[in-house]
């Protein structure tokens, strides 16, 4: 048998590997992100939070990680766009009747849509926090007052609602994505898969609740 296969990364399975890898990387990032943000719950007028934010904004290694993070997100989104386009093309003529609900969950069929919502949220989120901090760093400001900024932003009910909607998209994206990544890597095992699925479920629920609790408590004035 001759080997007639093209490049790994241009194959459908290769692209999925990259999606899964970047997805899992983002999942790990979310843990770090949520943990640092949770420092607002010390409720110490943002002393700990500002300290961590300053540290993040002025640390070389973290800048490197930031670059990797952006590359990761870009790779995930680009592959998502390519794959979703190819998948659409694979069925040019739709069914007149399709009873999809009996064989799969709606969110597993809506990863492209959920991802697009996430991307829109991400852009807003960067505009809210990342851009102002970057500007401040460039202007040479040492004291960022990120905490005051945070309280300002989340006093706007519209922003709070948009953030909560973004988190709902994240919840469903992760409910499918977490376990899907392991299947993509070839990890499907009678003993371990139920564990991975449970872990994915609890990870998604906990991370989303933790994130959601931040704008809500700030909006309600519980964090000062």
């Amino acid at each position: 048998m001759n080997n007639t296969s093209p490049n790994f990364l241009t194959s459908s399975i290769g692209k999925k590997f990259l999606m899964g890898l970047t997805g899992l990387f983002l999942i790990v990032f979310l843990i770090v992100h949520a943990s640092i943000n949770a420092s607002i719950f010390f409720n110490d007028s943002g002393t700990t939070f500002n300290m961590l934010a300053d540290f993040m904004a002025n640390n070389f290694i973290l800048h490197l990680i930031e670059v990797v993070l952006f590359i990761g997100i870009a790779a995930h989104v680009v592959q998502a766009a390519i794959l979703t386009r190819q998948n659409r093309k694979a069925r040019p003529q739709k069914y007149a009747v399709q009873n999809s609900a009996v064989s799969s969950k709606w969110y597993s069929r809506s990863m492209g849509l959920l991802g697009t919502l996430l991307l829109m949220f991400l852009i807003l989120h960067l505009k809210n926090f990342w851009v102002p901090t970057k500007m401040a760093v460039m202007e040479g400001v040492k004291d960022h007052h990120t905490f005051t900024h945070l309280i300002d932003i989340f006093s706007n009910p519209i922003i709070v609602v948009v953030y909560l909607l973004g988190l709902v998209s994240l919840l469903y994206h992760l409910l499918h994505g977490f376990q899907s990544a392991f299947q993509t890597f070839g990890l499907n095992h009678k003993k371990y898969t139920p564990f991975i699925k449970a872990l994915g479920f609890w990870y998604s629920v906990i991370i989303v609740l933790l994130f959601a609790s931040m704008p809500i408590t700030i909006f309600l004035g519980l964090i000062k």
Partner: protein
Amino acid sequence: MSGNMNLTLKIWRQNSGKEEGQLITYPVKDISPDMSFLEMFDVLNEQLVSKNENPIVFDHDCREGICGMCSMVINGRAHGPKSAITTCQLHMRSFKDGDTIVVEPWRAQAFPVIKDLTVDRTAFERIQSKGGFVSVNTGTAQDANCIPIPKDDADASFNAAACIGCGACVATCKNASAMLFVAAKVSQFALLPQGRIEAAARVKNMVAQMDAEGFGSCTNTGACEVECPKGISLENIARMNREYLAANCKD
């Protein structure tokens, strides 16, 4: 006869791959609940022929669930409302008197319509020809019995080999992905020592052909596994992903 049913069928008619098709409504009367779905089509076709109309073209062969020819999407599900069977194994008792039933062909860019409900599934054969076989001499039957194989592996290989190439997985998948089919064909050999020799080239070549045919990629929705008449499981797709990664790491 009492208990017989009158139904309204909406069936996809398309003269050729080059022409547009559409759903045409046909009433059928006095259908026995004990008929198979295909026998109901035979009755309808006899009516059409007696009226000098073109009979509906549909694929079928064994009519006992082993050849995989009877491709139809019935009311939005591959092979109809029951799981784990083919269309020829579907009985009219699964429907109620007065029901409207919509019947469409498999829809995928890689399975173009030939006529009406018949699609061209030779894309599967081209994938098979890239590696769905063992080209080394494995000896005679008693030689095979001399190679000890763990029972679990033998069972998993046998289960994968149950795939009849019907294409329901492709028809069901939102991406028209052929991963379950290809994974079954790859797994069947990957689990046995006779198949290991060519395992790396096999998985790479078959996946390359699968991509070239224009099937979509897998998003792990799991719909294929639910609609597969032979119960081919998602574990096979994971195994193929592993095999594919390992084969690519080798070079």
